[in-house]
């Protein structure tokens, strides 16, 4: 098939940037990585990009196609080429470009390292045996364990774009991999460290990381789990934690989000005083309800019952989110299929020599 591509080339020595277009002939099953290989081999050997496994596990070939991060080895070109679309390939975002599609990942690795991502065993060495832990107890970190450090999430992270020091989705997901590990003894220290500035609560929840992760790690969910675990451990002095807490308190007590009180509950009384003039303005224009008397929803008892139900199931912290993820994946899978693998038009059932005679 004929494939056309535009690639943002970058020459670090000269500082030149140029959008180059390439047209090549590629096999039907070619991926973006295969196409880049054809360009590098046969058209221009100076084109630079990283690659290795070409099977979605080494994490080398993260790059952007039409502005969204992908693994080049996972991106098939057939449909794109058939549509006549000419995609624009560029280096990942939020990392300095070294050359063409190669970015400097040292800041990325530095943040991974800052998580102290190694197990601190919280139990006596069992000697010549493994530590016994149930599969269900390990399940909460199953998704976080899938991360291949490709950087696609970081490339798309809006928080990191405004705060380059933000730990970011990959590092925080790695952090959750240890916080959620029942064998680890440093949970509280980790949660304290991750709750500081540039940490858990600096995520803006845009969900771009979740959308672009090629491995289903769901980094935003990991960050939510960290937040929930931090609050469960009483590490809630950050404004982000207070903000989240007020959502719960408010909906439990009145069935509504009482926005008027949200600012003081989040920022504290002293800091909120600065906002008084602004708040009065809002009040005057009818943009917020007066704080007293509190506006209580008609069926507030339902909100309270829901809260009590969740509490009674002891799914505090990350457990509730993990439960939700499991339920969702089950729904997604069951929605997708109602097929019989041995239907009329399927490949026949396997048989063994002699089985025919028996039938």
């Amino acid at each position, binding site marked *: 098939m004929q494939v056309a591509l535009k690639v943002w080339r970058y020459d*670090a*020595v000269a500082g030149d940037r140029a959008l180059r277009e390439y047209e090549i002939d590629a096999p039907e*099953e070619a991926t973006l990585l*295969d196409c880049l290989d054809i360009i590098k*081999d*046969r058209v*221009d*050997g*100076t084109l*630079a990009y990283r*690659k*290795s*496994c*070409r*099977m*979605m*596990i*080494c994490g*080398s070939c993260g790059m952007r196609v039409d502005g969204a991060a992908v693994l080049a080895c*996972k991106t*098939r070109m057939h449909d794109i080429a058939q549509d006549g679309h000419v995609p624009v390939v560029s280096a990942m975002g939020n990392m300095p470009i*070294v*050359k*063409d599609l*190669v970015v*400097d*990942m040292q800041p990325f*690795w530095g943040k991974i390292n800052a998580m102290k*991502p*190694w*197990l601190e*065993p919280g139990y006596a060495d069992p000697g*010549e045996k*493994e*530590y*016994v*832990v*149930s*599969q269900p107890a*390990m399940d909460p*970190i*199953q998704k976080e*364990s899938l991360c*291949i*450090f490709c950087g696609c999430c970081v490339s798309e992270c809006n928080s990191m774009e405004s705060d380059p020091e933000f730990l970011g989705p990959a590092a925080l997901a790695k952090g959750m991999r240890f916080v959620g*590990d029942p*064998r680890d003894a440093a949970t509280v220290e980790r949660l304290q460290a991750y709750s500081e500035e540039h940490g858990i609560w600096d995520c803006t929840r845009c969900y771009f990381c979740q959308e672009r992760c090629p491995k289903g790690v769901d980094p935003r969910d990991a960050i939510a789990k960290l937040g929930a675990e931090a609050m469960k451990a009483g590490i809630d002095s950050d404004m982000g934690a207070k903000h989240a807490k007020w959502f719960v308190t408010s909906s439990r007590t009145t069935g509504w989000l009482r926005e008027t009180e949200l600012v003081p509950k989040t920022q504290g009384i002293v800091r909120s005083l600065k906002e008084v003039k602004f708040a009065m303005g809002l009040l005057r224009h009818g943009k917020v309800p007066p704080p007293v008397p509190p506006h209580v929803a008609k069926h507030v008892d339902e909100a309270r019952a829901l809260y009590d139900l969740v509490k009674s199931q002891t799914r505090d912290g990350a457990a509730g989110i993990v439960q939700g993820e499991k339920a969702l994946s089950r729904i997604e*899978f069951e929605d997708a*299929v109602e*097929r019989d*693998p*041995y239907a009329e038009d*399927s*490949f*026949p*059932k*396997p*048989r*063994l*020599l002699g089985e025919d005679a028996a039938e």
Partner: protein
Amino acid sequence: MEGKHDVLVVGGGLTGMRAAVEAYDLGADVAILSKLHPTRSHSGAAEGGINAALGNASEDSPEEHAYDTVKGSDYLGDQDAIEVLCEEAPADVYQLERWGAVFSRTPDGRIAQRPFGAAGEPRTAYAADITGHVLVQVLYEQVMRRDIPTYEEYFAWKLVVDDERCQGVIAWDLLGGGLKAIGAKTVILATGGPGRMYAGSTNAYACTGDGMAMALRVGVPLEDMEMMQFHPTTLASNGVLITEGCRGEGAYLLNKDAERFMVHYAPNAMELASRDVVSRAEQTEIDAGRGIEGNVLLDLRHLGAERILEALHGTRELAMTFAHVDPIYEPIPVRPGAHYHMGGIDTDVWGRTALEGLYAGGEAACVSVHGANRLGGNALMETITYGKRAGHHAAEWALSHTTVAVPPSLERESERELQMLIDRTDGERPWKIREELATTMHDNFGVFRREDQMLAQGDIVQGLRERYERVVVDDKGDVFNNDLTQALELGFMLELAQCMVASGLARKESRGAHARPHDFPNRDDVNYLKHTLVTWDDGEPRVDWRPVTITKWQPQERTY
């Protein structure tokens, strides 16, 4: 000299990282040098698991593990090395678990183990079907914890030999540009296999046998180079591996008539016979016209959606992405593909090579625990146990010796040689040579081998080597010039291919992966119960021999 260390580990995969951690814990100043970031290493692509007689799924013992490995090797494995592996394996796996490896668990909370090919017991500990990935992560975590320095994206090109010992490497710095010399009292080569010289290989682009070729060039013998394993289940489109764990979980292999054809080749073990046996069976079916477009089918349907999603989710992802098949509903077309090189740099059970100060481990090395055919799950175990042992010995040696020297003349000479390649503007681009090498190795040195094809392949590789002399690098720059390093990798692979063909011609029998059905269809223990050893003699391979080490198990007829 850019840096100086007690121990320099070349390669950042499982062997390399395990060696580095061991050397560090013994107090050595150790560094890792790798052309990839360590977590990008191909160890991470290992799927099915790691073999150790933990006895969590059934009664098991290191001795049974050793016997299965000896038999699997078609009696070419050195039995002392196999016994070391199988005895140390359980403690080494517990160590990985203690470091945090996220293994799958049994209902009673122990490390789960699944059946694997040619194993008498369910012995393969696993983390779903991403075991290699999980182990790479845990070792990288331990490297971070120790703050072991890493020369990341440094392409090792030459070994420094001075005073008849190895004293470092000369490497091309991909990010910064330029050749850099790193001195070390001991060097451990953990650079993996050369599988990329085959079309349809399961291997990553990085698997170009760099360490083997570097060792060969300084006169270190390579052992059993003819022994390239073909994995029975790889995808036709790009050679991607579908784990043996599928068959461990109970998947069937079918021909176009939906028949479980393994009944004709291994009536007892069926799909779980050893890899050489299964690959030959598949190729026989395909050659007899009972395949489908050059493939047979791997059928997982009867395992059910729940088990597939739980234990084989990575496989499903690969099959859906690269074969457009959802294994819950359709069988996966698979065929044999070059996967693992049993041969490599000749070492003893401490990873020592013939050159003082030079060590090797993992797929780059040949201890030899795999002999003529490796069992699934034994490669990961070898990386850990023999990585540890190489790291241990290299550190102890380094700590009891003092000096390191990189002769400036060697640095200058290397720079001149590289500059000649960079400056050449008239000649051939490497890709065509690389593709011809890959397709001809697949055709002429594959699952079945014929004398005339091997002879022809020797000539083909010789011709490619001559063309390689005039190869042209497009990129003349310093920043991330992997056009240059890919050309150097091709040079490595061409020399190794020639060693493989020479060894293959010398072994006039059928043993394990080396199958010669047309002229020498049987194993010949009288004449060939011995290893090939190749050295480079004036630009040509020379084949010598060494007897197999036998401790307990005399060769027997091998059936499954």
